[in-house]
């Protein structure tokens, strides 16, 4: 039996012991399935995004393909799967479809900024650039800009490109690390309990 099953077993035994008949009866009368969240009803939506015939709800085809390319650059497959395998674009599309028009517009503006820079500098949309040019473009956006420095001015300067990059990266990271692939990437073994919290066991003043 896996550790997780062990916990679940003890959980149900504990629940049964805790509920005397009077309370259990009251609960069965009052239980309204419609008043449970999908999660509380046991709905598992983890396979929804991989459904055959998936189509975007919000993004158009070009935007969706651009997002796939961008997410694959930001979190690539290495010795572990990356954002493309985690279907990050599909999750972002799902969330955006339910967002306010303002949030939708903000996202499209950031995605459009990347294409705009690509058109300005390379005369082609971002998804059609060579990998080398995509990297040149992204490196210019990925880090905050400061002043020139020759005149002693090294302060931050207005940098909309970095802001758009960070907004897109934030959504991609959030989508990736909340996916099943992302949880595995962080090393989670799938169990919910790993014994009591041990805390610091070092002698006072020596935490190495």
């Amino acid at each position, binding site marked *: 039996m896996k550790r997780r099953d062990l916990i679940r077993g003890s*959980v149900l035994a504990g629940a049964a012991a805790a509920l005397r008949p009077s*309370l259990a009866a009251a609960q069965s009368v009052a239980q309204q399935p419609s008043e449970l969240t999908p999660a509380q009803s046991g709905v598992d939506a983890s396979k929804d995004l991989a459904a055959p015939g998936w189509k975007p709800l919000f993004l158009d085809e070009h935007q969706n393909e651009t997002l796939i390319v961008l997410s694959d650059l930001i979190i690539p497959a290495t010795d572990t799967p990356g954002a493309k395998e985690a279907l990050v674009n599909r999750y972002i599309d799902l969330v955006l479809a*339910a967002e306010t028009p303002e949030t939708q517009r903000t996202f499209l503006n950031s995605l459009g900024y990347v294409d705009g820079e690509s058109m300005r500098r390379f005369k082609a949309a971002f998804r059609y650039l060579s990998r080398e040019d995509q990297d040149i473009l992204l490196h210019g956006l990925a880090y905050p800009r400061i002043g020139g420095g020759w005149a002693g001015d090294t302060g931050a300067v207005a940098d909309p490109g970095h802001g758009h990059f960070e907004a897109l990266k934030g959504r991609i990271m959030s989508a990736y690390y909340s996916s099943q692939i992302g949880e595995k990437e962080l*090393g989670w*073994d799938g169990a919910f309990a790993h014994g*009591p*919290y041990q805390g*610091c066991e070092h002698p006072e003043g020596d*935490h190495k």
Partner: protein
Amino acid sequence: MAQDPLQTTYDAVVVGSGATGGWAAKQLGEAGLKVALLEAGRAVSPKEFTEHMPSYKLKYRDHSPEVVRTRPVQKQCYACMEYNYEWFVNDLENPYSTPPGKPFTWQRLRILGGRSLVWGRQSYRLSDNDFKAAGRDGYGDDWPIGYADLAPYYDIVERYVGISGATEGNEMLPDGQFLPPMKMSCGEVQLRARVKAKFGHTVTIGRTAILTQNHNGRLACHYCGPCERGCSTFSYFSSPFTTVKDALASGNCTLFTNAVVSHVDMDTEPNKTRGVTYVDRLTRQVKEVRGKAVILCAQALESTRILLNSSTREYPNGLANSGGALGHYLMDHVVGAGASGRLPEFKTLPNANEPERPNGIYVPRFRNTPSSKRHSRFIRGYGYQGGAEAGFNFSAEGYGASLKKAVKEGEYGISLGAFGESLARWDNYIEIDRDLKDAWGIPALRISMTHGDNEAALMEDAGATAAEMLEAAGAKDIRVQAGVEMPGMAIHELGTARMGNDPKKSVLNAFNQAHDVKNLFVMDGASFVSSACQNPTLTMMALTVRACDHLIGRFRKGEI
């Protein structure tokens, strides 16, 4: 459930089944009194606990538009999630209003157990530095009780609930009946040692209503983390699986779920209540439950709302309000200040498979104590909650394979956040909004509250002082917050039906009994005279057990 409640006159009608209502039902039921326990929401089952469900099984991974649509206020609390939002009230059905420029967030659950299902579980005693604060610094009013009055009841509650914690002998934070404390991390141990050495202040592990060993038929914590989604081993204290269960087992308690109480009913005999009226949440039928005593445990603002909605010819401004204090002196701990940073000297590799400790550290109040000089810019003080641990570095810069690597390399973070005393002020108050009703036709509240200059000064000091402490602990990249969050954010609403010896200035006496209506009690946070800065639920429960003790005595003497 009773089929015809009017055929029965209960000894006591308890309104609300949360932390205090559960205690009242248990205490009175076990003493042999016949109790009706009314809960506005439905019953709850362990089958709906979701603490062991990974977020990738949620359709929106906690960004559900349904939560945004139906819980725009409730979702301001971290605990209202795609997992469990149905436990929280639907804001569309449960409106309240605030004056322009005075926002207030009101977090509510209507379900058996109320907020005890999702509470933060931190459990601290108040001391005479709190109960008698007005006598020391001249602001406000002292409580009509002192620490010695409540200490035996703190003992009872702690022994039953199971509070894990460490004894410290701190003058501001009395020790209690503790289960073994949870352990501190390396960073926390270092913070504790250096803050003691440099400032003389105490850093202790959080005192929390979570079991560190099997206790009273409940299992020790298995350190899975997200208590607010329920606990399959019942390791944190919530009333449905403890006090309410005991009350029902006594054979003397009848549970009415879906009973939305609208008002208290008065008897033909003057200054005496005969029970309450409620609206069935599902059928909208209006019903009455009769009792020799009525005990409101509905949550501070809800209990006072019921009294304000129970006006009579004698009490045109709310029941039991001859003195005029009902609704006034609303408090909620001030939050919004603290500091965070990195402890680069510690191991940074985070491990997704480490046990998750559902608890932090606590720094008891150290300003304006008997052994410290008076602060020049504010009265009272604040305590810190916080923690230090290795975590994944989701704010790593750049992109690509190096980003993936940096996330996993992680960083060792440390933070402290303050909870400050909210001074009791007459002009922070609730009233009935005559133009606004909830989905059951019950007039809704208008809440008027702001934090004042003293609260702002507390937070300014708390931000800078937290930075000093983190610096002493060896933290780098320290960031300071020194703001004031909107009232309600601490979710520690207190006051509006305060205790006191003077009926002209208070609503309740020292036993949570209405001055004006002797068989009417309010046993929740509404009764607080001052807020102190400690998390209040433990004190609410101790006050309830003490008040019930008194009530049982009066029943036995035939006075009720």
